[in-house]
């Protein structure tokens, strides 16, 4: 009788562990998808602001803007690598616009331009947060699928890639406490 109860308890514990571990993987996958969606939203907002800024700049210096305006690909369902490429392309265009504004004081002091700059700054901060959330969840997921005994259930799940920052902007963030 006691042996039967003991076996039932062990089976119950194993079943509970199986369910909770599988659910944990799924939960992390959902969080990663949500974080990726936040990256796309932030990139879209940045793209909108940049497009408007480009239009404003063309009103002051059409020829110069043509030299650095580029076609930026941004659509739903892009791969992480393509998203990062779009991010880099936007950063390059933005640098060009800001450099141009230095040569055209009327453009630089234009209210619309200043407002768009603030909007882009805000979009960049949200993008930075979205990247960090994404990478943090990817770290949690990649750790969860290799830790024993959960790794026994990981099955075909492979490690996910991180969202890499622009190489030019890549720097070590040292936090001093």
């Amino acid at each position, binding site marked *: 009788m006691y042996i039967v109860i003991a076996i039932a308890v062990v089976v119950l514990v194993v079943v509970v562990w199986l369910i909770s571990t599988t659910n944990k993987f799924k939960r992390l996958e959902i*969080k990663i998808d949500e*974080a990726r969606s*936040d990256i796309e939203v932030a990139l879209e907002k940045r793209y909108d602001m940049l497009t408007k800024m480009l239009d404003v700049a063309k009103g002051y210096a059409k020829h110069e803007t043509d030299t650095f305006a580029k076609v930026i690909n941004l659509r739903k369902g892009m791969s992480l690598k393509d998203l990062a490429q779009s991010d880099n392309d936007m950063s390059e265009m933005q640098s060009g616009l800001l450099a141009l504004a230095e040569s055209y004081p009327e453009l630089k002091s234009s209210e619309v331009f200043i407002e768009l700059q603030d909007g882009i700054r*805000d979009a960049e*901060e*949200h993008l*930075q*947060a*979205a990247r*960090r*959330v994404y*990478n*943090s969840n990817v*770290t*949690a997921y990649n750790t969860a699928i290799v830790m024993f005994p959960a790794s026994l259930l990981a099955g075909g799940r492979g490690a996910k890639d991180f969202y890499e920052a622009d190489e030019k902007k890549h720097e070590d*963030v040292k*936090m*001093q*406490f």
Partner: protein
Amino acid sequence: MNEKNLNEVIKSENRKRLIGIILVVAGFIGFMFTPIVGAPLAIIGFFLAISATNNLKNKVGNTLAREVLGEYFDDFTYEPEGYFNEHLFDDVDMALPGYNRLSANDFITATYKDHKLKICDLNLEEVYNDGKHTHTTTVFQGPFIEAAYDKDIKTPVTVAKDKFTLFKKSIDTESEEFNSRFNVYSDSEHDAFFILTPHMMERIAKVNDLAGDDIFINFNVGKLYFAIDNHHNNFELDMSQKSVDDIKQDFKKDMDYILEVLDELLEGLD
């Protein structure tokens, strides 16, 4: 009242306070031998000490508090007995310790470096009765501050020292050291990361080291709230303060302490 008069008031009321305390002690001792003499002595001494304390606060403390605040802020209001709407302390989730009695005072409103500011002293107590006696434990005592800021978040983010909270899961940032020292609570992971940049996390750790005490922070929509459990009531008078200069110096220390912490947090938001 000029400074000379204020100093005279301080000396006279401190003297009264001292006499009151001596009478209370004498009264308690006398009560053991002759209750009919001891009891009135203690009661007279008690009321004398209370009256002197209130006179000091009303005639000197409030005046000097306003003078000191005028050195920090161009435009401010000061209500010695005022405080925030009581419901605010419940509504703003700062993971403050549980309490069932609240008292607050020294309410200040001002503009500081273009940020609208409100400050009060907050005292939280847990009172329980075991059938025979009433026990009172102070669970929080210190300044509570609200400062307006313009970061775009939609859900509040709370940062508190590491305390176990049964129904809430803390959000882990990418900094292991920060995670080991603080718990972060929010319904939005994105907003938590948006506010808690590496720069901000450094500031919070620095502020906690500066304060040397438990600090509670809530980044709300448009407003930053923080409270410091430093077991200290601001703008209070005690018998060690012999002159106007002593009192003003202590009041300035109170303000410097709060503004130093606020400066660090506002800097982290820039």
